Protein backbone atom coordinates (compact mmCIF):
# COMPACT_ATOMS: atom_id res chain seq x y z
CA UNK A 1 0.00 0.00 0.00
CA UNK A 2 1.52 3.30 -1.11
CA UNK A 3 0.46 6.23 1.10
CA UNK A 4 -0.32 9.50 -0.67
CA UNK A 5 0.78 12.59 1.27
CA UNK A 6 -0.38 16.16 0.79
CA UNK A 7 -0.29 19.37 2.79
CA UNK A 8 -3.55 20.72 4.19
CA UNK A 9 -2.50 24.37 4.24
CA UNK A 10 0.57 25.27 6.32
CA UNK A 11 -0.56 23.41 9.47
CA UNK A 12 -1.68 19.93 8.37
CA UNK A 13 -0.32 16.89 6.61
CA UNK A 14 -3.00 14.64 5.19
CA UNK A 15 -2.03 11.05 4.43
CA UNK A 16 -4.25 8.73 2.42
CA UNK A 17 -3.25 5.12 3.09
CA UNK A 18 -5.83 3.80 0.64
CA UNK A 19 -8.51 5.39 -1.57
CA UNK A 20 -10.82 2.47 -0.76
CA UNK A 21 -11.75 1.25 2.70
CA UNK A 22 -10.16 -1.98 3.88
CA UNK A 23 -9.05 -3.43 7.20
CA UNK A 24 -5.46 -3.41 5.92
CA UNK A 25 -5.65 0.36 5.28
CA UNK A 26 -7.32 0.95 8.65
CA UNK A 27 -4.67 -1.06 10.53
CA UNK A 28 -1.88 0.75 8.75
CA UNK A 29 -3.40 4.12 9.69
CA UNK A 30 -3.73 2.97 13.31
CA UNK A 31 -0.12 1.73 13.47
CA UNK A 32 1.42 4.76 11.80
CA UNK A 33 -0.49 7.20 14.02
CA UNK A 34 0.60 5.23 17.11
CA UNK A 35 4.20 5.40 15.87
CA UNK A 36 3.87 9.16 15.26
CA UNK A 37 2.53 9.61 18.81
CA UNK A 38 5.35 7.52 20.30
CA UNK A 39 7.95 9.47 18.31
CA UNK A 40 6.92 12.66 20.21
CA UNK A 41 7.92 14.87 17.28
CA UNK A 42 8.44 18.50 18.25
CA UNK A 43 5.75 20.78 16.81
CA UNK A 44 3.12 18.06 16.34
CA UNK A 45 -0.16 19.27 17.85
CA UNK A 46 -2.79 16.69 16.89
CA UNK A 47 -2.70 13.20 15.42
CA UNK A 48 -5.98 12.02 13.92
CA UNK A 49 -6.34 8.47 12.63
CA UNK A 50 -9.22 7.92 10.19
CA UNK A 51 -10.75 4.98 8.32
CA UNK A 52 -8.12 4.62 5.61
CA UNK A 53 -6.12 7.82 6.13
CA UNK A 54 -4.74 10.03 8.85
CA UNK A 55 -3.95 13.66 9.54
CA UNK A 56 -1.26 15.39 11.57
CA UNK A 57 -1.66 19.02 12.66
CA UNK A 58 1.59 20.82 13.37
CA UNK A 59 3.09 24.20 14.13
CA UNK A 60 5.33 25.22 11.22
CA UNK A 61 7.09 27.69 13.52
CA UNK A 62 8.44 24.69 15.42
CA UNK A 63 9.08 22.18 12.63
CA UNK A 64 9.60 22.77 8.91
CA UNK A 65 6.73 21.22 6.93
CA UNK A 66 9.17 19.29 4.71
CA UNK A 67 11.03 17.92 7.75
CA UNK A 68 7.79 16.62 9.26
CA UNK A 69 6.77 15.15 5.89
CA UNK A 70 10.10 13.28 5.67
CA UNK A 71 9.63 11.98 9.23
CA UNK A 72 6.07 10.78 8.50
CA UNK A 73 7.24 9.03 5.33
CA UNK A 74 9.90 7.24 7.37
CA UNK A 75 7.35 6.11 10.00
CA UNK A 76 4.87 5.14 7.27
CA UNK A 77 7.36 2.75 5.69
CA UNK A 78 8.41 1.35 9.07
CA UNK A 79 4.82 0.44 9.97
CA UNK A 80 4.71 -2.24 7.23
CA UNK A 81 6.86 -4.45 9.43
CA UNK A 82 4.60 -4.47 12.49
CA UNK A 83 2.45 -7.52 13.26
CA UNK A 84 -1.23 -6.54 12.81
CA UNK A 85 -2.19 -7.42 16.39
CA UNK A 86 -3.88 -4.99 18.78
CA UNK A 87 -4.97 -5.10 22.40
CA UNK A 88 -8.44 -3.61 22.39
CA UNK A 89 -11.95 -3.81 23.84
CA UNK A 90 -15.17 -5.40 22.67
CA UNK A 91 -18.28 -3.44 23.59
CA UNK A 92 -21.90 -4.58 23.37
CA UNK A 93 -24.30 -1.84 22.25
CA UNK A 94 -28.03 -2.51 22.70
CA UNK A 95 -30.13 -1.24 19.78
CA UNK A 96 -33.85 -0.75 19.42
CA UNK A 97 -34.09 -1.14 15.63
CA UNK A 98 -37.05 0.43 13.85
CA UNK A 99 -37.72 2.73 16.84
CA UNK A 100 -40.44 5.43 16.92
CA UNK A 101 -38.01 8.42 17.15
CA UNK A 102 -35.90 7.80 14.07
CA UNK A 103 -39.09 6.75 12.28
CA UNK A 104 -40.69 10.12 13.06
CA UNK A 105 -37.52 11.90 11.90
CA UNK A 106 -37.18 9.92 8.67
CA UNK A 107 -40.81 10.65 7.80
CA UNK A 108 -40.18 14.36 8.40
CA UNK A 109 -37.25 14.35 5.93
CA UNK A 110 -38.76 11.90 3.44
CA UNK A 111 -38.49 14.22 0.45
CA UNK A 112 -34.70 14.16 0.86
CA UNK A 113 -34.57 10.38 0.54
CA UNK A 114 -33.94 8.02 -2.37
CA UNK A 115 -37.16 6.15 -1.56
CA UNK A 116 -39.85 8.58 -0.39
CA UNK A 117 -42.41 5.78 0.06
CA UNK A 118 -40.52 3.49 2.40
CA UNK A 119 -38.39 3.65 5.52
CA UNK A 120 -34.59 3.75 5.67
CA UNK A 121 -34.52 0.13 6.89
CA UNK A 122 -36.81 -1.08 4.08
CA UNK A 123 -34.66 0.76 1.54
CA UNK A 124 -31.39 -0.59 2.98
CA UNK A 125 -32.74 -4.15 3.05
CA UNK A 126 -33.83 -3.94 -0.59
CA UNK A 127 -30.66 -2.44 -2.05
CA UNK A 128 -28.54 -4.98 -0.16
CA UNK A 129 -30.57 -7.82 -1.68
CA UNK A 130 -32.07 -8.96 1.63
CA UNK A 131 -35.64 -10.25 1.67
CA UNK A 132 -36.86 -8.38 4.74
CA UNK A 133 -36.09 -5.77 7.37
CA UNK A 134 -35.57 -8.61 9.86
CA UNK A 135 -32.98 -10.20 7.58
CA UNK A 136 -31.23 -6.83 7.34
CA UNK A 137 -31.21 -6.40 11.13
CA UNK A 138 -29.75 -9.89 11.44
CA UNK A 139 -27.00 -9.07 8.93
CA UNK A 140 -26.28 -5.81 10.76
CA UNK A 141 -26.13 -7.33 14.24
CA UNK A 142 -24.72 -10.82 13.72
CA UNK A 143 -21.09 -9.90 12.97
CA UNK A 144 -19.00 -7.35 14.91
CA UNK A 145 -17.76 -3.96 13.71
CA UNK A 146 -14.50 -2.07 14.13
CA UNK A 147 -14.42 1.54 15.32
CA UNK A 148 -12.35 2.70 12.35
CA UNK A 149 -12.52 6.41 13.16
CA UNK A 150 -13.87 8.71 15.87
CA UNK A 151 -14.97 12.15 14.81
CA UNK A 152 -17.31 14.33 12.76
CA UNK A 153 -18.74 15.49 16.10
CA UNK A 154 -17.63 14.73 19.66
CA UNK A 155 -17.15 11.01 20.24
CA UNK A 156 -19.05 9.77 17.16
CA UNK A 157 -17.72 6.36 16.07
CA UNK A 158 -17.47 5.31 12.42
CA UNK A 159 -17.86 1.52 12.30
CA UNK A 160 -16.67 -0.93 9.68
CA UNK A 161 -18.16 -4.41 9.64
CA UNK A 162 -15.84 -7.36 10.17
CA UNK A 163 -17.04 -9.57 7.29
CA UNK A 164 -15.87 -10.31 3.73
CA UNK A 165 -16.31 -7.36 1.40
CA UNK A 166 -19.12 -9.04 -0.59
CA UNK A 167 -21.17 -9.36 2.61
CA UNK A 168 -20.68 -5.77 3.72
CA UNK A 169 -23.79 -3.65 3.97
CA UNK A 170 -23.73 -0.52 1.86
CA UNK A 171 -26.15 2.37 1.56
CA UNK A 172 -25.86 5.84 0.06
CA UNK A 173 -26.27 8.92 2.23
CA UNK A 174 -29.48 10.94 2.02
CA UNK A 175 -29.80 12.93 -1.21
CA UNK A 176 -29.63 16.09 0.92
CA UNK A 177 -28.48 15.92 4.55
CA UNK A 178 -31.12 16.20 7.30
CA UNK A 179 -31.02 19.15 9.66
CA UNK A 180 -32.03 16.88 12.55
CA UNK A 181 -31.09 13.43 13.82
CA UNK A 182 -32.13 12.06 17.23
CA UNK A 183 -29.30 11.65 19.72
CA UNK A 184 -27.90 8.07 19.80
CA UNK A 185 -29.28 7.15 16.38
CA UNK A 186 -27.57 4.19 14.74
CA UNK A 187 -26.92 5.34 11.17
CA UNK A 188 -25.28 4.03 8.01
CA UNK A 189 -23.63 5.66 4.97
CA UNK A 190 -21.33 4.12 2.37
CA UNK A 191 -19.93 1.03 4.12
CA UNK A 192 -19.88 2.71 7.55
CA UNK A 193 -22.30 2.56 10.44
CA UNK A 194 -22.18 5.22 13.13
CA UNK A 195 -23.78 6.27 16.40
CA UNK A 196 -24.76 9.94 16.45
CA UNK A 197 -23.37 11.14 19.79
CA UNK A 198 -25.36 14.39 19.80
CA UNK A 199 -28.56 15.62 18.17
CA UNK A 200 -27.92 17.50 14.93
CA UNK A 201 -27.46 17.37 11.18
CA UNK A 202 -26.78 14.06 9.48
CA UNK A 203 -26.88 12.31 6.13
CA UNK A 204 -26.68 8.63 7.05
CA UNK A 205 -29.64 6.21 6.79
CA UNK A 206 -31.28 5.75 10.21
CA UNK A 207 -31.83 2.18 11.47
CA UNK A 208 -32.49 2.45 15.18
CA UNK A 209 -31.46 3.98 18.47
CA UNK A 210 -29.37 2.89 21.45
CA UNK A 211 -30.28 3.69 25.08
CA UNK A 212 -26.55 3.75 25.94
CA UNK A 213 -24.97 7.24 25.99
CA UNK A 214 -21.54 7.36 24.34
CA UNK A 215 -20.67 11.02 25.06
CA UNK A 216 -21.22 12.99 28.25
CA UNK A 217 -19.60 16.44 28.43
CA UNK A 218 -20.62 16.65 32.12
CA UNK A 219 -19.03 13.27 32.89
CA UNK A 220 -21.86 12.23 35.23
CA UNK A 221 -22.43 8.81 33.62
CA UNK A 222 -20.42 6.16 35.50
CA UNK A 223 -18.51 4.69 32.56
CA UNK A 224 -17.79 8.18 31.11
CA UNK A 225 -16.35 9.66 34.31
CA UNK A 226 -12.74 8.99 33.26
CA UNK A 227 -13.29 10.53 29.86
CA UNK A 228 -16.33 12.07 28.21
CA UNK A 229 -16.08 10.01 24.98
CA UNK A 230 -16.50 6.22 25.11
CA UNK A 231 -14.91 5.15 21.84
CA UNK A 232 -11.33 4.88 20.60
CA UNK A 233 -10.23 3.71 17.15
CA UNK A 234 -9.68 -0.04 17.25
CA UNK A 235 -12.58 -0.76 19.63
CA UNK A 236 -14.84 -3.60 18.50
CA UNK A 237 -18.63 -3.17 18.68
CA UNK A 238 -21.31 -5.83 18.69
CA UNK A 239 -24.93 -4.69 18.29
CA UNK A 240 -27.53 -6.40 20.49
CA UNK A 241 -31.09 -6.05 19.14
CA UNK A 242 -33.52 -5.26 21.98
CA UNK A 243 -37.25 -4.64 22.20
CA UNK A 244 -39.08 -1.57 23.49
CA UNK A 245 -39.42 -2.91 27.05
CA UNK A 246 -35.68 -3.61 27.26
CA UNK A 247 -34.97 -0.17 25.76
CA UNK A 248 -37.15 1.59 28.36
CA UNK A 249 -35.55 -0.43 31.16
CA UNK A 250 -32.05 0.50 29.93
CA UNK A 251 -32.97 4.20 29.74
CA UNK A 252 -34.26 4.02 33.32
CA UNK A 253 -31.01 2.32 34.37
CA UNK A 254 -28.95 5.05 32.70
CA UNK A 255 -31.01 7.75 34.44
CA UNK A 256 -30.63 6.00 37.81
CA UNK A 257 -26.87 5.61 37.33
CA UNK A 258 -26.96 1.80 37.42
CA UNK A 259 -26.50 1.01 33.72
CA UNK A 260 -23.45 -1.23 33.32
CA UNK A 261 -22.23 -1.60 29.74
CA UNK A 262 -20.75 -4.93 28.67
CA UNK A 263 -17.11 -4.17 27.87
CA UNK A 264 -14.32 -6.80 27.75
CA UNK A 265 -10.62 -6.59 26.96
CA UNK A 266 -9.58 -8.60 23.95
CA UNK A 267 -6.61 -9.10 21.68
CA UNK A 268 -7.23 -8.99 17.93
CA UNK A 269 -5.03 -10.46 15.20
CA UNK A 270 -5.79 -9.42 11.62
CA UNK A 271 -3.88 -12.41 10.24
CA UNK A 272 -5.90 -14.91 12.32
CA UNK A 273 -9.12 -13.06 11.51
CA UNK A 274 -8.50 -13.25 7.75
CA UNK A 275 -7.79 -16.99 8.00
CA UNK A 276 -11.39 -17.79 9.12
CA UNK A 277 -13.61 -14.76 9.64
CA UNK A 278 -16.73 -16.53 10.94
CA UNK A 279 -14.81 -18.67 13.40
CA UNK A 280 -12.89 -15.62 14.63
CA UNK A 281 -16.11 -13.66 15.15
CA UNK A 282 -17.60 -16.57 17.14
CA UNK A 283 -14.51 -16.43 19.34
CA UNK A 284 -15.05 -12.68 19.87
CA UNK A 285 -18.66 -13.39 20.84
CA UNK A 286 -17.33 -15.86 23.39
CA UNK A 287 -15.13 -13.18 24.93
CA UNK A 288 -18.09 -10.82 25.14
CA UNK A 289 -20.38 -13.31 26.83
CA UNK A 290 -17.81 -15.15 28.89
CA UNK A 291 -18.03 -18.59 27.29
Amino acid at each position, binding site marked *: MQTRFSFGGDEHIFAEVGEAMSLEAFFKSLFVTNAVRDAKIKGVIEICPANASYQVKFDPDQIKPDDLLAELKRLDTGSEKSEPVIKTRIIEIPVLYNDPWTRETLMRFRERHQDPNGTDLEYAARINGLESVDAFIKAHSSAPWFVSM*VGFVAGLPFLYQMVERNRQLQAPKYLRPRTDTPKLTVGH*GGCFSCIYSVRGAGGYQMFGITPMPIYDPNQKISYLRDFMCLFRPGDIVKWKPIDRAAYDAAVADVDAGRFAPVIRDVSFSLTDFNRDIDAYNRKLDGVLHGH
Partner: protein
Amino acid sequence: MAIKVLKPGLATTVQDLGRPGYYHIGIPLSGGMDRHALAAANLLVGNPEGAAVLEAVFMGPELEFTEDATVAITGAELPPKLDGEPRETWTSFKVRRGQILSFDFLKQGARGYIAVAGGIDVPVVLGSRSTYALGALGGFNGRKLEAGDELPVGKAVAAVKDGRTVAKDLRGQPAGVPTELRAMPGLYWHRITEAAGNGFFSDTWKVAPEADRIGYRFKGGKSLEFVPREPPFGAGSDPSNITDACYPYGSIQVPGGTEPIVLHRDAVSGGGYFMVGTVIAADMDLIGQLQPNTPVKFVKVGMDQALAARKNRAELLGKLRTALA
Protein backbone atom coordinates in the same frame (compact mmCIF):
# COMPACT_ATOMS: atom_id res chain seq x y z
CA MET B 1 -18.14 40.40 40.00
CA ALA B 2 -20.57 39.32 37.32
CA ILE B 3 -22.14 40.44 34.08
CA LYS B 4 -25.88 40.03 33.72
CA VAL B 5 -27.08 39.20 30.23
CA LEU B 6 -30.17 41.32 29.52
CA LYS B 7 -30.30 40.48 25.81
CA PRO B 8 -28.06 37.80 24.32
CA GLY B 9 -27.64 39.13 20.76
CA LEU B 10 -27.84 36.68 17.89
CA ALA B 11 -25.24 34.09 18.88
CA THR B 12 -22.92 35.35 21.59
CA THR B 13 -20.50 32.78 23.04
CA VAL B 14 -17.57 32.68 25.45
CA GLN B 15 -14.32 32.07 23.53
CA ASP B 16 -10.59 32.03 24.20
CA LEU B 17 -7.74 30.79 21.98
CA GLY B 18 -9.18 27.30 21.84
CA ARG B 19 -8.85 23.68 22.83
CA PRO B 20 -6.16 21.82 20.86
CA GLY B 21 -5.57 18.10 21.37
CA TYR B 22 -9.00 16.49 21.00
CA TYR B 23 -9.70 16.69 17.28
CA HIS B 24 -9.01 12.96 16.94
CA ILE B 25 -12.24 12.26 18.84
CA GLY B 26 -14.24 14.92 17.05
CA ILE B 27 -13.80 17.79 19.51
CA PRO B 28 -12.55 20.76 17.48
CA LEU B 29 -10.23 23.59 18.42
CA SER B 30 -13.05 26.14 18.87
CA GLY B 31 -11.91 29.56 20.18
CA GLY B 32 -12.26 32.99 18.58
CA MET B 33 -12.92 32.99 14.84
CA ASP B 34 -10.76 36.16 14.63
CA ARG B 35 -7.91 35.41 17.02
CA HIS B 36 -6.05 38.65 16.28
CA ALA B 37 -9.05 40.75 17.31
CA LEU B 38 -9.57 38.53 20.38
CA ALA B 39 -5.95 39.04 21.47
CA ALA B 40 -6.24 42.80 20.85
CA ALA B 41 -9.36 43.08 23.02
CA ASN B 42 -7.59 41.29 25.87
CA LEU B 43 -4.39 43.34 25.60
CA LEU B 44 -6.44 46.55 25.67
CA VAL B 45 -7.86 45.68 29.10
CA GLY B 46 -4.62 44.28 30.53
CA ASN B 47 -5.57 40.60 30.24
CA PRO B 48 -3.34 37.79 29.04
CA GLU B 49 -3.81 37.49 25.27
CA GLY B 50 -5.79 34.26 25.55
CA ALA B 51 -8.24 35.21 28.31
CA ALA B 52 -11.88 34.33 27.69
CA VAL B 53 -13.99 37.03 26.02
CA LEU B 54 -17.42 37.23 24.45
CA GLU B 55 -17.70 36.72 20.71
CA ALA B 56 -20.84 38.35 19.29
CA VAL B 57 -21.86 37.73 15.71
CA PHE B 58 -23.77 40.34 13.63
CA MET B 59 -25.59 41.77 16.65
CA GLY B 60 -24.26 42.77 20.06
CA PRO B 61 -25.70 41.67 23.40
CA GLU B 62 -27.04 43.94 26.15
CA LEU B 63 -25.06 43.53 29.38
CA GLU B 64 -25.38 44.92 32.88
CA PHE B 65 -22.30 45.12 35.12
CA THR B 66 -22.57 44.38 38.86
CA GLU B 67 -19.17 46.03 39.60
CA ASP B 68 -16.92 48.66 38.04
CA ALA B 69 -14.99 47.23 35.10
CA THR B 70 -12.76 48.05 32.15
CA VAL B 71 -13.88 46.72 28.79
CA ALA B 72 -12.82 46.87 25.12
CA ILE B 73 -14.60 45.88 21.91
CA THR B 74 -12.59 44.87 18.84
CA GLY B 75 -13.12 42.99 15.58
CA ALA B 76 -16.27 44.00 13.72
CA GLU B 77 -17.49 47.62 13.75
CA LEU B 78 -20.18 46.90 16.31
CA PRO B 79 -20.47 50.37 17.92
CA PRO B 80 -20.72 50.11 21.73
CA LYS B 81 -23.00 52.31 23.84
CA LEU B 82 -22.78 52.80 27.58
CA ASP B 83 -26.14 53.72 29.07
CA GLY B 84 -26.99 54.80 25.53
CA GLU B 85 -23.86 57.01 25.09
CA PRO B 86 -21.62 56.03 22.12
CA ARG B 87 -18.17 54.64 22.82
CA GLU B 88 -15.30 53.75 20.47
CA THR B 89 -14.38 50.27 19.26
CA TRP B 90 -10.72 49.17 19.57
CA THR B 91 -10.46 51.42 22.64
CA SER B 92 -10.64 50.51 26.34
CA PHE B 93 -13.21 52.30 28.51
CA LYS B 94 -14.50 52.15 32.06
CA VAL B 95 -17.92 50.82 33.00
CA ARG B 96 -19.42 51.75 36.39
CA ARG B 97 -21.40 49.36 38.51
CA GLY B 98 -25.01 49.16 37.30
CA GLN B 99 -24.27 50.60 33.86
CA ILE B 100 -25.57 48.90 30.74
CA LEU B 101 -23.42 48.10 27.74
CA SER B 102 -25.34 47.75 24.50
CA PHE B 103 -24.53 47.99 20.80
CA ASP B 104 -25.61 49.87 17.73
CA PHE B 105 -26.19 48.16 14.38
CA LEU B 106 -23.25 46.39 12.76
CA LYS B 107 -21.32 48.72 10.43
CA GLN B 108 -18.57 46.44 9.14
CA GLY B 109 -17.25 42.91 9.67
CA ALA B 110 -19.19 40.12 11.37
CA ARG B 111 -17.76 39.30 14.81
CA GLY B 112 -17.14 41.63 17.72
CA TYR B 113 -14.98 40.67 20.72
CA ILE B 114 -15.91 42.01 24.12
CA ALA B 115 -13.09 41.74 26.66
CA VAL B 116 -13.45 42.56 30.35
CA ALA B 117 -10.47 43.11 32.63
CA GLY B 118 -10.11 39.82 34.52
CA GLY B 119 -11.64 37.73 31.73
CA ILE B 120 -14.87 35.72 31.64
CA ASP B 121 -14.32 33.17 34.39
CA VAL B 122 -16.29 30.12 33.26
CA PRO B 123 -14.80 26.69 34.12
CA VAL B 124 -11.88 25.38 32.08
CA VAL B 125 -12.96 22.24 30.21
CA LEU B 126 -10.27 20.16 28.46
CA GLY B 127 -7.88 23.07 28.81
CA SER B 128 -10.09 25.87 27.47
CA ARG B 129 -13.03 28.12 28.30
CA SER B 130 -14.25 28.14 24.70
CA THR B 131 -17.82 27.17 23.84
CA TYR B 132 -18.29 24.17 21.54
CA ALA B 133 -22.06 24.41 21.15
CA LEU B 134 -22.52 21.33 18.93
CA GLY B 135 -21.02 19.15 21.68
CA ALA B 136 -22.64 21.16 24.53
CA LEU B 137 -19.10 21.61 25.89
CA GLY B 138 -17.24 24.46 27.59
CA GLY B 139 -18.17 28.15 27.69
CA PHE B 140 -21.29 29.09 29.66
CA ASN B 141 -23.15 25.76 30.17
CA GLY B 142 -21.97 24.58 26.76
CA ARG B 143 -24.20 26.98 24.83
CA LYS B 144 -24.66 30.48 23.45
CA LEU B 145 -25.78 33.12 25.94
CA GLU B 146 -29.43 33.56 26.92
CA ALA B 147 -31.19 36.42 28.67
CA GLY B 148 -30.85 36.00 32.43
CA ASP B 149 -27.42 34.37 32.36
CA GLU B 150 -24.91 35.71 34.89
CA LEU B 151 -21.34 35.53 33.66
CA PRO B 152 -18.63 35.32 36.32
CA VAL B 153 -15.66 37.66 35.77
CA GLY B 154 -12.15 36.95 37.08
CA LYS B 155 -10.00 39.29 39.12
CA ALA B 156 -8.16 41.84 36.99
CA VAL B 157 -4.40 41.24 37.22
CA ALA B 158 -3.39 44.89 36.91
CA ALA B 159 -5.04 48.29 37.07
CA VAL B 160 -5.57 49.37 33.47
CA LYS B 161 -6.05 52.79 32.02
CA ASP B 162 -9.04 53.49 29.87
CA GLY B 163 -8.65 55.23 26.53
CA ARG B 164 -5.97 52.86 25.28
CA THR B 165 -6.46 52.31 21.58
CA VAL B 166 -5.22 50.18 18.66
CA ALA B 167 -4.01 52.02 15.55
CA LYS B 168 -5.88 51.17 12.31
CA ASP B 169 -2.88 49.47 10.70
CA LEU B 170 -2.55 47.02 13.61
CA ARG B 171 -6.15 45.77 13.51
CA GLY B 172 -5.62 43.10 10.85
CA GLN B 173 -9.13 43.34 9.43
CA PRO B 174 -10.06 42.24 5.87
CA ALA B 175 -9.27 44.91 3.28
CA GLY B 176 -10.19 45.31 -0.38
CA VAL B 177 -13.00 43.99 -2.54
CA PRO B 178 -13.24 41.14 -3.29
CA THR B 179 -11.64 39.76 -0.14
CA GLU B 180 -8.72 37.55 -1.10
CA LEU B 181 -8.35 34.25 0.73
CA ARG B 182 -5.10 32.50 -0.02
CA ALA B 183 -5.39 28.74 -0.36
CA MET B 184 -3.04 25.85 -1.05
CA PRO B 185 -4.34 23.27 -3.50
CA GLY B 186 -3.75 19.69 -2.50
CA LEU B 187 -5.59 16.90 -0.68
CA TYR B 188 -7.69 15.75 -3.66
CA TRP B 189 -6.63 18.27 -6.34
CA HIS B 190 -6.02 15.41 -8.80
CA ARG B 191 -9.69 14.49 -8.70
CA ILE B 192 -10.91 17.53 -10.65
CA THR B 193 -10.17 18.54 -14.24
CA GLU B 194 -7.57 21.22 -14.99
CA ALA B 195 -10.32 23.55 -16.26
CA ALA B 196 -12.27 23.08 -13.01
CA GLY B 197 -9.16 23.81 -10.94
CA ASN B 198 -8.46 27.00 -12.90
CA GLY B 199 -12.11 28.02 -12.68
CA PHE B 200 -12.16 27.62 -8.92
CA PHE B 201 -9.35 30.16 -8.52
CA SER B 202 -10.56 32.58 -11.22
CA ASP B 203 -14.26 32.73 -10.24
CA THR B 204 -15.57 35.31 -7.78
CA TRP B 205 -17.51 33.61 -4.98
CA LYS B 206 -19.95 35.09 -2.51
CA VAL B 207 -20.42 34.21 1.15
CA ALA B 208 -23.65 32.22 1.44
CA PRO B 209 -26.14 32.70 4.32
CA GLU B 210 -25.03 29.36 5.82
CA ALA B 211 -21.87 30.69 7.42
CA ASP B 212 -21.12 29.91 11.04
CA ARG B 213 -18.42 28.73 13.40
CA ILE B 214 -18.43 25.26 11.83
CA GLY B 215 -17.92 26.46 8.28
CA TYR B 216 -18.46 29.16 5.70
CA ARG B 217 -20.31 28.22 2.52
CA PHE B 218 -19.63 30.07 -0.76
CA LYS B 219 -21.76 30.29 -3.88
CA GLY B 220 -21.76 31.85 -7.32
CA GLY B 221 -18.81 30.10 -8.96
CA LYS B 222 -18.90 27.30 -11.50
CA SER B 223 -19.51 23.70 -10.45
CA LEU B 224 -16.43 21.51 -10.35
CA GLU B 225 -15.95 18.85 -12.99
CA PHE B 226 -14.44 15.62 -11.70
CA VAL B 227 -12.05 13.33 -13.51
CA PRO B 228 -14.12 10.19 -14.24
CA ARG B 229 -13.35 7.15 -12.11
CA GLU B 230 -14.82 4.01 -10.57
CA PRO B 231 -15.83 4.96 -6.96
CA PRO B 232 -13.50 3.18 -4.50
CA PHE B 233 -15.15 0.82 -1.99
CA GLY B 234 -16.55 2.72 0.98
CA ALA B 235 -16.54 6.14 -0.64
CA GLY B 236 -20.12 6.38 -1.83
CA SER B 237 -21.28 6.82 -5.39
CA ASP B 238 -21.25 10.61 -5.88
CA PRO B 239 -18.08 11.81 -7.65
CA SER B 240 -17.55 14.28 -4.80
CA ASN B 241 -17.45 11.48 -2.18
CA ILE B 242 -14.32 10.11 -0.55
CA THR B 243 -13.82 7.32 2.00
CA ASP B 244 -14.61 9.29 5.16
CA ALA B 245 -11.41 11.01 6.28
CA CYS B 246 -10.17 13.85 8.51
CA TYR B 247 -10.84 17.43 7.53
CA PRO B 248 -8.07 20.01 8.12
CA TYR B 249 -9.13 23.38 9.58
CA GLY B 250 -9.50 25.72 6.61
CA SER B 251 -10.06 22.85 4.21
CA ILE B 252 -12.39 23.64 1.33
CA GLN B 253 -14.86 20.80 0.85
CA VAL B 254 -17.20 20.86 -2.12
CA PRO B 255 -20.23 18.59 -1.58
CA GLY B 256 -21.66 17.56 -4.94
CA GLY B 257 -19.01 19.75 -6.60
CA THR B 258 -21.21 22.84 -6.32
CA GLU B 259 -20.77 25.08 -3.25
CA PRO B 260 -17.42 25.15 -1.43
CA ILE B 261 -17.46 25.12 2.38
CA VAL B 262 -14.40 26.34 4.31
CA LEU B 263 -14.27 24.61 7.68
CA HIS B 264 -13.53 26.90 10.62
CA ARG B 265 -12.87 26.71 14.38
CA ASP B 266 -15.85 24.47 15.29
CA ALA B 267 -15.17 22.22 12.29
CA VAL B 268 -16.64 18.77 11.98
CA SER B 269 -13.46 16.72 12.23
CA GLY B 270 -14.09 14.39 9.34
CA GLY B 271 -16.47 13.10 6.75
CA GLY B 272 -16.86 11.88 3.22
CA TYR B 273 -16.60 14.95 1.00
CA PHE B 274 -13.85 15.78 -1.48
CA MET B 275 -11.67 18.79 -0.57
CA VAL B 276 -10.10 21.05 -3.18
CA GLY B 277 -7.46 22.60 -0.92
CA THR B 278 -6.97 24.50 2.33
CA VAL B 279 -7.10 28.20 3.24
CA ILE B 280 -3.76 29.15 4.82
CA ALA B 281 -3.63 29.77 8.57
CA ALA B 282 -2.76 33.48 8.12
CA ASP B 283 -6.10 34.16 6.40
CA MET B 284 -8.42 32.24 8.73
CA ASP B 285 -9.09 35.29 10.95
CA LEU B 286 -10.36 37.20 7.90
CA ILE B 287 -13.06 34.62 7.16
CA GLY B 288 -14.70 35.16 10.55
CA GLN B 289 -15.30 38.81 9.63
CA LEU B 290 -17.07 38.16 6.30
CA GLN B 291 -20.74 39.02 6.05
CA PRO B 292 -23.12 37.06 3.79
CA ASN B 293 -22.88 38.15 0.13
CA THR B 294 -19.31 39.47 0.50
CA PRO B 295 -17.42 38.76 -2.74
CA VAL B 296 -14.37 36.53 -2.25
CA LYS B 297 -11.61 35.24 -4.47
CA PHE B 298 -9.52 32.23 -3.58
CA VAL B 299 -5.88 32.91 -4.47
CA LYS B 300 -3.66 29.93 -5.21
CA VAL B 301 -0.43 29.90 -3.19
CA GLY B 302 2.30 27.43 -2.32
CA MET B 303 3.91 26.55 1.02
CA ASP B 304 6.60 29.27 0.78
CA GLN B 305 3.96 31.99 0.34
CA ALA B 306 1.86 30.49 3.14
CA LEU B 307 4.81 30.59 5.52
CA ALA B 308 5.70 34.16 4.48
CA ALA B 309 2.08 35.23 5.12
CA ARG B 310 2.20 33.46 8.47
CA LYS B 311 5.35 35.42 9.39
CA ASN B 312 3.66 38.71 8.42
CA ARG B 313 0.63 37.89 10.55
CA ALA B 314 2.88 37.01 13.52
CA GLU B 315 4.76 40.31 13.06
CA LEU B 316 1.47 42.21 13.11
CA LEU B 317 0.62 40.59 16.44
CA GLY B 318 4.14 41.39 17.68
CA LYS B 319 3.66 45.08 16.84
CA LEU B 320 0.27 45.03 18.57
CA ARG B 321 1.87 43.59 21.72
CA THR B 322 4.59 46.25 21.67
CA ALA B 323 2.05 49.03 21.14
CA LEU B 324 -0.04 47.88 24.10
CA ALA B 325 2.82 46.84 26.41
